[in-house]
């Protein structure tokens, strides 16, 4: 039935290659994405509801949710502020070394997470360049949730910068000028005029940074240290369960992580759609 519809539509298509590209894409998506994901469902279906509940509500796991959420939230908020600042400075000002700073913003995506992880762990350990110094101030970073948040923040730096930057670049100078001719001071104009324009991009970027931080593994484990109930993140719990051949437990916890990430991603997309509709007319 669907195949028939597709064929009927295809016969009206002007450009060639529909059948081939559909075939290649569907094969790839099924084999690489869907089949493995169904294996997760398959694993879970062998569990009863109470078994499932028992696995995902283990106190140590619960503690890991809390640490992960807290650290990811702090990291995302830090990035919202830092990313906004960097986007602003890179778009609005000229200064020596600007091109270099701009290029450096992508470092966290280019640098393997494990490398970021061991580097941050070394820098912030109590003997490290920065950690030593913070220790004397009574601010231990390594093996605390702050260290976890720091590693998460590092790996998700580009999200906010790179979503806000193009929007800020496209903002016509009349927007600034209109606000200023109406007597607005810089702070007022920024809050009431510029920020609302950046808001969708800022929230999207922050949301993506948060989702990424929730799943971060390589960058976090070294600086986290893995103290049960204190610095264990959920990804690590899954990893540990796998090493203990507890596949059911790992799958159960993974299902929570996966569902949360997908739900957040969906939410971000919906929210973005709503904003875009308002700015471009249609729907009161």
């Amino acid at each position: 039935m669907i195949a028939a519809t597709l064929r009927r539509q295809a016969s009206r298509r002007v450009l060639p290659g529909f059948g081939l590209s559909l075939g290649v894409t569907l094969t790839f998506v099924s084999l690489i994405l869907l089949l493995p994901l169904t294996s997760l469902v398959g694993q879970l279906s062998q569990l009863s509801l109470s078994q499932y509940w028992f696995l995902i509500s283990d106190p140590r796991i619960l503690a890991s949710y809390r640490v992960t959420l807290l650290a990811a939230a702090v990291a995302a908020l830090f990035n919202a502020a830092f990313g906004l600042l960097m986007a602003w400075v890179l778009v609005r000002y000229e200064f020596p070394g600007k091109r270099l700073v701009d290029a450096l913003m992508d470092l966290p995506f280019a640098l393997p997470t494990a490398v970021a992880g061991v580097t941050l762990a070394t820098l912030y350990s109590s003997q490290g360049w920065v950690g030593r110094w913070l220790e004397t101030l009574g601010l231990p970073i390594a093996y605390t949730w702050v260290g976890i948040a720091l590693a998460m923040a590092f790996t998700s730096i580009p999200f906010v910068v790179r979503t806000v930057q193009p929007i800020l670049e496209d903002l016509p100078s009349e927007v600034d000028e209109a606000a200023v001719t109406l007597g607005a001071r810089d702070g007022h104009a920024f809050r009431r005029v510029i920020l609302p324009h950046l808001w969708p991009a800022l929230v999207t970027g922050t949301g993506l940074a948060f989702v990424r931080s929730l799943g971060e593994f390589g960058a976090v484990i070294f600086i986290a240290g893995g103290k049960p109930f204190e610095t264990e993140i959920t990804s690590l719990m899954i990893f540990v369960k796998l090493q203990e051949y507890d596949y059911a437990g790992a799958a159960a916890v993974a299902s929570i992580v996966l569902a949360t990430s997908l739900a957040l991603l969906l939410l971000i997309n919906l929210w973005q759609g709503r904003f875009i509709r308002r700015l471009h007319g249609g729907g009161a």
Partner: protein
Amino acid sequence: MIRIGDAPGVRRLLIGVALVLTALFLLLPLVAIFAQALMGGIDLYWQNLSDRYTLAAIGLTLLVTLLTVPINLVFGVFLAWLVTRFSFPGRRLLQTLIDIPFAVSPVVAGLVYLLLYGRNGWLGGWLDSYDIQIMFAWPGIVLVTIFVTCPFVARELIPLMQAQGAREEEAAVTLGASGWTIFRRVTLPKIRHALLYGAILTNARAVGEFGAVSVVAGAIRGQTNTLPLQVEQLYQDYNTVGAFTSASLLALLALLTLAAKAALEWRAARRESLA
């Protein structure tokens, strides 16, 4: 020209804070990698680099990358062609599906592959009876790497091809060109840079993937260690200099990636300003 935030005081303050934070968060770690790697002198660095296991890790990483990047390039082009040149039911769903690897924790990515191809998995048991091992061997590493990096090329191509529209391809069809000719002569020249950019991003991630690979690799030294896994293992063995030696290779590659990206963007900007 009057612009908000142009008062000299504000400007200097914001630039200052931005530079300090960038130096602290981005530059310092980068410097630290090379400093740690060279801590024991250049001789030790070479010695670590030519270590048997390190060389094996480099080899495996290259193999994984060489397989992953072309496969994802081909897939990305087909996907982008499909969703930007045709409309069909389920197009939006397909685009959403493709984003899943971005949202999924790499550990979960590794897990689902382990569940599928592991000894007790659906396919794993069957393959095992033919003596084909996927998990804890290089094919598994390649598979999860493909999974993790599959959105990059398509993500670069789709917005570009959407913006370019299909006019020129349609014109080529009316001139009687075949599908392959249209792609090679009309489409490819327009998307060359995006394609290259997608390949660079895929490459960077493929080389550096850690979470997913560490689940499926099983870490047999000299056999299933990629460079990032090698970094971890040496670090856990308290061989800091060794760990950072491997890390410095990866960092060097990251710097190359950044330079390539900057060069591509610079060229695109220049072409735009000339147009």
